[in-house]
């Protein structure tokens, strides 16, 4: 049965999503357990896949037994196996977390929420697993549609934010589809491996160049890369806390994955680097993204909006690492996909827990919060330090590789910008953390009873606290094991020509 894991990991959440509707008609409460069980299975399967891939190399699964390029093939190498583990794990953690917060935020939409959540997971896992460019488009749209709906049920600004996301996302998807169409005209194939065989002799044809441009723009919109990021902050700010935690930590990363696939699998690396200097363009845009994201984030008082702008900067990090075009930088980018997924999940979950308890997202109301909810704020601190890049948190190590990559390719501006942006990150989180630990108005009686305000402690429920702690511990432990992760998985994802 395990050899069918590549398709099962997509079918199981899909079936569970539709089952939820029926189960929900009978018992509302079962939906939660059902979802968690399905996602747990996904985590197990993804780990199994990673194990197989690490052991025996790339898996190719032919749907319907049709050999590619005629049938759809699911091709899983180290890169997507790695991503599958990240996405399924974070989806499980967020699902566990979502129980209480969803019961509070949308009490009458629980069934629909879990259905859409599972569909979103299905879409993301499908994007990662498939080896077929059109199938990728379908899953991209499944994920996006579920995302639109999930974002729309947030607070009262959410519908408008979600509508803008729909417009932008549709443009992105249509551009991607156009690119696929051009590739199909030029080669008559939709299979990634097949395309990478057929394309090299067409690299000078305008159709292929146009296809590449359309694909890149479409994906850049989906991953909120700098000039095309407008939809992101609103959408992520107004979504329900569980949704924004999951989407923020995975969706942009999956977009980055698709970009890497297009640049280095569908097209050969030397095309993306030499034939047309797309990596150079992306690199400079990434620099702009880092600066823009950090600078806009400084000005925000809404913690979720602040984190959303930080995501834009983080996407810039990833693209920068890819664009320097050497082994170090690429390793840093892939490592940063993992680390950033964890950091963002941790921070958004913590922010959600804080909002759940205090009802505010405004950082100025966080003063002396550590007395009220020490564990959550501790996790928030860990996440913040990791984003700033203080060792031994994992954020330091991905930045280590990113900067070394930039230095190796003599891109001093990139390296300087990355360090400068981590300075700005330090400013951002310093502002928040000082508020949390040394609030301007101390809690009454604090001076008489001393620092750890056990007396006024009022933590979030355990089902929220546990995922947050998992993420915080994950951030710390990923830091220590990053060398092992690189040597066992990431080094195989680097394109051969680097």
């Amino acid at each position, binding site marked *: 049965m395990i050899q069918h894991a590549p398709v099962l990991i997509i079918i199981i959440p899909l079936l569970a999503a539709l089952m939820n509707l029926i189960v929900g008609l009978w018992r509302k409460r079962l939906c939660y357990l059902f979802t968690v069980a399905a996602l747990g299975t996904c985590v197990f399967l993804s780990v199994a896949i990673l194990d197989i891939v690490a052991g025996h190399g790339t898996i190719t699964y032919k749907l319907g037994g049709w050999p590619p390029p005629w049938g759809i093939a699911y091709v899983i190498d180290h890169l997507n196996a790695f991503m599958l583990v990240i996405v399924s794990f974070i989806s499980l953690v967020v699902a566990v977390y979502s129980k209480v917060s969803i019961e509070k935020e949308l009490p009458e939409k629980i069934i629909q929420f879990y259905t859409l959540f599972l569909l979103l997971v299905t879409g993301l896992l499908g994007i990662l697993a498939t080896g077929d460019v059109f199938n990728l488009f379908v899953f991209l749209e499944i994920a996006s549609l579920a995302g639109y709906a999930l974002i729309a049920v947030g607070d009262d600004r959410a*519908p408008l934010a979600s509508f803008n996301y729909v417009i932008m996302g*549709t443009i992105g998807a249509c551009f991607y589809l156009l690119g696929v169409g051009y590739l199909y005209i030029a080669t008559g194939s939709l299979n990634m491996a097949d395309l990478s065989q057929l394309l090299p002799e067409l690299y000078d044809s305008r159709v292929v160049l146009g296809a590449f441009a359309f694909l890149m723009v479409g994906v850049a919109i989906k991953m909120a890369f700098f000039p095309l990021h407008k939809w992101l902050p609103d959408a992520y700010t107004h979504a329900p806390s569980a949704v924004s935690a999951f989407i923020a930590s995975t969706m942009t990363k999956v977009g980055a994955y698709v970009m890497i696939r297009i640049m280095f699998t569908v097209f050969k690396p030397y095309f993306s680097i030499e034939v047309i200097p797309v990596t150079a363009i992306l690199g400079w845009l990434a620099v702009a993204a880092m600066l823009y994201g950090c600078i806009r984030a400084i000005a925000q008082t809404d913690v979720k909006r602040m984190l959303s702008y930080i995501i834009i900067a983080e996407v810039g990090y990833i693209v920068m690492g890819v664009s320097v075009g050497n082994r170090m930088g690429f390793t840093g980018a892939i490592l940063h996909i993992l680390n950033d997924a964890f950091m963002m999940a941790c921070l958004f979950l913590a922010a959600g827990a804080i909002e759940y308890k205090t009802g505010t997202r405004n950082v100025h109301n966080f003063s002396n919060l550590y007395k009220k909810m020490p564990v959550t704020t501790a996790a928030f601190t860990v996440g913040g330090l990791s984003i700033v890049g203080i060792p031994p948190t994992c954020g330091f190590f991905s930045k280590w590789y990113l900067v070394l990559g930039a230095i190796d390719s003599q891109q001093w501006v990139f390296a300087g910008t990355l360090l400068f942006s981590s300075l700005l990150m330090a400013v951002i989180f310093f502002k928040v953390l000082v508020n949390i630990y040394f609030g301007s108005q101390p809690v009454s009686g604090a001076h008489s009873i001393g620092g750890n305000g056990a007396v006024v402690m009022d933590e979030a429920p355990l089902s929220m606290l546990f995922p947050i702690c998992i993420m915080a511990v994950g951030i710390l432990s990923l830091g220590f094991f990053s060398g092992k992760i690189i040597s066992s998985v990431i080094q195989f994802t680097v394109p051969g020509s680097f």
Partner: protein
Amino acid sequence: MEIMDFIISKYNYWMYIIIMMIGFYAMIAKTNLAKKVVGMNIFQTAIILFFISTASKKGATIPIIQHGHGEAADIIHAAQYMNPLPHVLMLTAIVVMVSTFGVAIALLIMIYRKYNTLEEDEILEILKIENGR
């Protein structure tokens, strides 16, 4: 002269580009959200037309072999049949398009309930007032 037949011979591409740009313009420039959605539909329709037009051949028929296997199977000439793949792809794309349309319309209803208008600038005004408070 050859520029003319360059244009004429590729007329389907010119058509889809024109339609697509109409839709694109509506999505970007119109301030009315409903018109944005309409533009979105036009945009997607143009892409579907593009795909379908790439599949067509003169004098070809549907790619289904009548009275199937056996002795009939050896008289298959690819030139006689349309390329089915773009149609299949577009069937999926249409489904995607319909569901996107549904989501967009639902969002429009939610927005209208809240702001009693679909004009973007009026909504932004309302938001500004809300932020002022």
